[in-house]
């Protein structure tokens, strides 16, 4: 599903250049569930953002489902993100003035699915997350766990092939974290590839494979 070869990435700020990814090689098969671990600042998010076509890389190769990802137009990138990928962020990133249902329906909005139809589908996904009663609430009326479940429903509604989660439990207490992980495991069980960035050990343990990044290199691959 995902192949990357010798990915390099530097951040340039003023005079300084920070070499963050120093030749990452990684292959993730369809239906896998893996975690990426590493110290803070080791480049986990940077890698995930490149995988999510939110950022570009300096050199190397990246294939997503056989499509070469390199210097795409922003239009093409947006379409690929919409069709292929689902994002779950640490800070949820819900749109504040849209209710839970409308937030979930957003990816379908960008596919020009009619409003009635996409809201109906959004309700199905919310129901799967046990949030049907909360459909018409704004994000600031929801708890952290509820917000993250809305975000997961939103990530799933476009029927993506890969879910990218950057510290999805980072802002949640431990019980809620476990719930979210249960959901992500269920998602993976339906055949969707799941990639989770985390620095919590017990979260990583619940994935099948853990990749450890140290100082911009993959230093360890553990099969849990």
């Amino acid at each position, binding site marked *: 599903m995902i192949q990357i070869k010798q990915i390099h990435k530097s951040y340039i700020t003023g005079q300084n250049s920070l070499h963050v990814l120093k030749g990452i090689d990684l292959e993730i098969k369809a239906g896998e569930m893996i975690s990426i671990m590493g110290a803070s600042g080791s480049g986990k998010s940077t890698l995930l*953002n490149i995988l*999510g076509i*939110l*950022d*570009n890389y300096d050199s190397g190769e990246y294939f997503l489902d056989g499509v070469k990802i390199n210097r795409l137009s*922003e*239009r093409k*990138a*947006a*379409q690929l*993100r*919409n*069709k292929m990928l689902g*994002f779950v*962020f640490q800070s949820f*990133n*819900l*749109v*504040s*003035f*849209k209710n839970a249902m*409308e937030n979930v329906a*957003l*990816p379908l*909005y*960008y*596919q020009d699915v009619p*409003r009635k139809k996409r809201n109906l589908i959004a309700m199905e996904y919310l129901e799967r997350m046990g949030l049907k009663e909360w459909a018409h609430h704004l994000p600031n009326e929801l708890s952290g766990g509820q917000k993250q479940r809305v975000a997961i429903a*939103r990530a799933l509604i*476009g029927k993506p092939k890969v879910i990218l989660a950057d510290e999805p439990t980072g802002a949640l207490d431990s019980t809620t974290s476990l719930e979210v992980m249960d959901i992500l495991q269920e998602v993976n069980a339906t055949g969707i590839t799941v990639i989770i960035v985390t620095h919590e050990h017990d979260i990583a343990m619940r994935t099948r494979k853990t990749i450890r990044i140290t100082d911009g290199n993959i230093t360890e691959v553990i099969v849990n």
Partner: protein
Amino acid sequence: MFDIDRWQEIYHVLRKNKLRTFLTAFGVFWGIFMLVIMLGSGNGLQRGVTQNFGDMATNSVFIWTQQTSIPYKGFPRGRQYNFDNEDVIAIRHSIPEIKYLAPRIQAGGFMQTNNVIRGLKSGIFNIMGDYPAFNKIDPLNFTSGRFINDLDIKDKRKVAVIGSRVVDFLFTKNENPINQYIQIQGVYFQVIGIFTSKRTGEQANQENQNIYLPFTTLQQTYNYGNAVGFFSITSQDDIPVSVVEEKTIRLLKKRHAVAPADETAVGHFNLKKEYDKMQGLFFGIRLLVWIVGTGTLLAGVIGVSNIMLVVVRERTKEIGIQRALGATPWKVISQIVMESVVLTTFAGYFGLVVGVGLLELINFLLGSTGANTEMFVHPGIDFSVAVTALTILVICGVLAGMIPARRAVSVKPIDALRYE
């Protein structure tokens, strides 16, 4: 357009900071409002001044005699002379560029004694001897009867055409003046027509006190011999009146032994020249109004663009989320441009409505208070101007939104998402 999510977002953005939205909208509102008011007032002024011309043919020239200023052919300077009936024939004969020629002679009114009597009523009025052509050059509004015709001239009929104020003076409310007799400087005339002026204000008052008699009748009745007071002349439609003016003056000078170089002996007034001057003035006013108006409007639009820049910056993260979820650049750009267009159009439309409303109110007040509005008649703007202004607004809205919108999609999605 009928995408609820778009409107929801616009509503959210504009509502978020109401004072800011209001102030921004006010900039555009004020621009359009000022433009409408200034254009409307300019139009009112122009209508007022133009109405002072009545329906007068603008390609006319008026010619009369004055003292000579150069001794010529044995005559001393300072000589008085008169035009005469032979001049009329000579002009008609030798200047084919003339369309209407209306000789006139005036019989009184300038003498401060009552010159018109009917029964016990009397008044001071201007008495003119005219040809039918005069009503073609400077038309009157006939409420009943008619103007002088060719038969009146030929038979030297004792008939009179009188203004509405003359009627008010000499007749009671329920009398019909037509076919009645009035005594003008001792001679009885039968009333054949009643008119009102097409001018406004004081000028109309003056004209409504006029009495018109057949030219030939007046000449004979009051012993003017064959003298002519002055000529009103219009040129053929495709000929500039200045050509006629010049030819006629040259002919008259020759016929009355006036030196060709004598600038003062023949008085003349070229209406076309005055009219053109006026038109130039109004063109200048309108140009100025558009420059000032669009300048004000531009300031408002720049304000919108500025605010949209701020809004886009504030919403960087939100836009980042939308892009991560698959919003294409076009979707983002069109959303922001639409916000800008809605803001400008709405504010501008409001300015247009309030501006037109104020002009209508002024109209109403001018009408109901009966103010002397000689120089200011029916201020207002054309519908086409309103449509133009709105079109300009929409275009401005698009332009104002374009820069912020492009900036919104110029950052990488990840940088937008990271923005705090």
